[in-house]
């Protein structure tokens, strides 16, 4: 157990991301550390409470206001696409439902899924988003690429196993992160505990620490 604690602390602290968080906001860093450790050791209630608190604070301070806002340029595109849909789809499009989808629903769904896609990219966490750097976003390397093999092993264990709690955390964190501003200077921080927990999972398998 002692080795596992040391390992979890090493993984949580030996990355660029947490020090960047500490550099900007010490309290946030402390909460993230607690959340990571509680997720690694599956302290379920503490994890859920910290996650909820952090999510609320994160979304209050960094909501993606673009999610519910259509800029004039986007409006221009929508009108143009309206013409294309009308020509290609005919009466299937030219009705209330079709117009509602084009103007009222799909633009927002598209923006949300785009955010979701950004945060689901492993390159964002290990290679500062290289080679698909985002325009306007602040990109920094969050974890060293040397930790990538541990992360991959962790993901494989996760995919093959039935760790529903960690998977649920991942899904919840991604859904909430996608509501936040993607260009946030500290990145999608809610996913930090998941990555440390997955690296930990890979590490204990590789170093044969699993009983």
């Amino acid at each position, binding site marked *: 157990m002692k080795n596992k604690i040391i390992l979890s602390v090493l993984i949580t602290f030996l990355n660029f991301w947490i020090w960047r968080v500490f550099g900007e906001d010490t309290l946030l860093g402390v909460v993230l550390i607690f959340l990571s450790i509680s997720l690694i050791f599956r302290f379920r209630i503490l994890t859920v409470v910290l996650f909820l608190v952090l999510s609320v604070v994160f979304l209050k301070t960094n909501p993606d206001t673009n999610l519910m806002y259509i800029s004039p340029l986007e409006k221009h595109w929508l009108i143009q696409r309206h013409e294309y849909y009308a020509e290609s789809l005919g009466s299937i499009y030219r009705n209330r439902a079709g117009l509602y989808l084009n103007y009222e629903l799909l633009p927002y769904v598209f923006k949300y899924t*785009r955010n979701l896609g950004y945060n689901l990219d492993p390159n964002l966490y290990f*290679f500062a988003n290289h080679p698909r750097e985002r325009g306007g976003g602040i990109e920094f390397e969050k974890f060293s690429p040397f930790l990538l093999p541990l992360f991959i092993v962790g993901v494989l264990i996760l995919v093959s196993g039935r760790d529903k709690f960690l998977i649920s955390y991942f899904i919840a964190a991604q859904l909430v992160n996608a509501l936040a501003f993607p260009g946030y200077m500290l990145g999608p921080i809610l996913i930090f505990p998941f990555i440390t927990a997955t690296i930990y999972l890979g590490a204990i398998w590789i170093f044969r620490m699993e009983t």
Partner: protein
Amino acid sequence: MKKRTFILFFCILVLATFVRLWQIGSVPPGLNVDEVSEGYNAYSILKTGKDRYGMFMPITFKSYGSYQPPLYTYLTVLPVYIFGSTVFAVKVVSLISGILVVIFTFFIIREFLITKNDKTSLIAALVITISPWAIFFSRMATEASVSLTLFVIGFYLLLRSIKNASFFVLACLFMGVSTHAYYSERIVSLLFLLGFVVVYRGKLLSQKKWLLWGLTVFAITQLPHLFILNSGAFTRRLNQVSYLSLSSFEANGTAFKDILFGRVMFIVREFLSQYLTYFSPRSLFFEPDDQVARSIPNLSVFHIWMIAPWVFGFRYLIKNRGNFLVKNLIILMLIAPIPAALSTDPFYTLRVFVLLWFFSIVISIGSWQLLEKIKSHFLKLFVIFILTIFSLATFYIHYFALYKHERGETVNFSSTELIKITKERADDNFVIDLSRDVALGIRFAFFREYNPTLFQSREGAPFLDKYYSSVEYEKRYDMYNIEIRPINWEGDVYKSQILVGDLLAISERQVNEHKLKLEFEIKDLANNIVLVGYSTDPKAKCLSSPISVYCKK
């Protein structure tokens, strides 16, 4: 095969053919630069046995400063003979390749997956049928489509060779020929064949005769590559797109310049990040390829819903990693991204067809795993039906509505329209200044079936001597009533002709100054003016500037 399975498989094939064939001549509304090059070279081979530069049966086709793998062009000769110089003729090889992939995927899963389950093989055929990448590229004349088909057939035969060693020879033939279809397979086919031989050396060595025959056949297929190995043509594309050169390091490796083994670290980082991006859900399910010419607006290579079966498919692979097919699929997964990971482009779909095919199988297995959780047979069919309809509807909206209108110029729709005008107005002379369509001359030559012998002697001859070693290519064309070159504003306005260009080539000031008269405008499918044609008025021009030497004549 059970009768019910056969009927369902037949229905899937009909669907696969329909979605690939429907409106193929008009969506996309033209041919891109590579397609038109393949088309005219095929036409030239058909008529003269030589390509447009006059090279007899080239090992690789010289094309706009690079080289095209030869197989697609040679296979296109027959369709061009049957259907003439049309968009359909150029695409038909890709179309057939796409359908063959569906067929062989069905048989691979049916014969080798642990379950030997008809349902899984039908789902696999269906997933390939409705995957955006598979439909999109089957409707485009891409060498990679042919190479994927050859690879998949070779893969199938390799798997069969474990039970019947004689298949090994045929498998090596297909793997070898696939290296002449697209660049990626030069690496993927070779590495996979080597990996297969190493992993199953015990079984293969017990049938030494077939093993040696197979490897000999593969070696023979590689002889053409040996002839051009040191010419520059063989490695030209790699040099164009990779980050392995010193100049690439100096341009992009600033952060590694002062570090010990900095260049090695730069290459390792580039390779790993590129490799990883081909497994990223962002690249596979959420975002299209960055190249607008080879991607659909707002639609990735797979549908978003496929992410769930993708994960469950991997779960199956991990749990059944000892299965014969799964083991080979895992080897394939590790090898397939290597060629693309050696290039600088982030997520270049064409270079990873084999990987996308692998992912399609993973998605099929995952779909089958998820469907097994549904007890009701009726509900299973309902889910399959709804997902198929949803996927095809999504593809239709993004491809036939958006891609067609927003990306029409990636296949130079306006140039194709211009060709029609020049043909209709055969008595007029045209000077066309259009540097952004590098293939304009070849486009005219292909669609108007310009005599290849004339083309070879006038446009191609200067480049024949250094065919495999020089990257120079023709930029001016003179055929029929058309000259393709930059407008000479000092001379052209004094001759009676039509000047054609985009809005940057001919400004309003030039129109007024040179007394030009608007003859036509060509709009793209998004209704933007792309090309304009103005007739000159030499008399009026000479009246306004009588001292010109052209007026004295």
